[in-house]
């Protein structure tokens, strides 16, 4: 429970995919496209009924928030660095081999925020608006569910389950 680090076990295939997904997420954050709905979801408006207050808040905090998201994503990408060498080539034996990452407790929040933010981006892209907007036939939901599963596992691991 009070161990200094939380363990995350990923097979090579997962690690490589996660590294790619976080990389794509970082690219999205860096684009800072003001018209992108996904970015709006990552920096929501706390004053939906007050245009003036909402503009002031966005001016004061939005860039800063996206910067902190980038810093979080960077923590995750550094931890996933061992998987980068498998991007170009992976043997059948490599693919399902398990790797255990030791995430220091101080970095768990960066992982949680990043995995959750990626789910939010995917949800925006997939148009998930209601709880039941989930089409099991659509393979794009696979990655959304998988990230949710990894997020759940990380929360359990941190709580010591």
């Amino acid at each position, binding site marked *: 429970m009070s161990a200094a680090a939380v363990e995350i076990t990923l097979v090579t295939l997962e690690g490589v995919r996660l590294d790619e997904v976080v990389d794509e997420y970082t690219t999205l954050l860096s684009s800072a496209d003001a018209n992108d709905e996904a970015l709006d979801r990552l920096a929501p408006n706390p004053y939906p009924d007050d245009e003036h207050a909402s503009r002031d808040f966005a001016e004061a905090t939005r860039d800063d928030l996206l910067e902190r998201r980038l810093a979080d994503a960077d923590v995750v990408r550094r931890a996933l660095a061992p998987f980068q060498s498998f991007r170009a080539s992976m043997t059948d034996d490599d693919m399902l081999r398990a790797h255990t990452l030791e995430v220091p407790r101080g970095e768990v929040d960066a992982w949680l925020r990043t995995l959750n933010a990626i789910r939010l981006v995917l949800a925006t892209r997939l148009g998930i608006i209601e709880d039941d907007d989930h089409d099991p036939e659509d393979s794009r939901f696979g990655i959304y569910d998988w990230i949710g599963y990894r997020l759940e596992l990380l*929360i359990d691991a941190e709580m010591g389950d």
Partner: protein
Amino acid sequence: MSTPAVVPDVVEDIDLRAAPLEPWQVVVWNDPVNLMSYVVRVFRTYFGYSIDRATSLMLAVHHDGHAIVATGPRETMEVHAQAMHEYGLWATVRKAPQ
């Protein structure tokens, strides 16, 4: 009891009614993406709420569509809202209804 060594010779007449402390609230809204366990985790670690309180707030968000997670001065509530946004929760700030 000792007497204060320095007695202020000016009595400031501060009318507290002129600047009423109006409480503000942070409201977290339901969304289909954030996992229940994740929302509880955020309420526990960020606000330091007990697992019971964090869980009942999460359930209120889930079933009632929203829950008030903090009340206090506006500036503090904005800091909390920004932290909620950083965790990906959909939070708004509003003046507490009278």
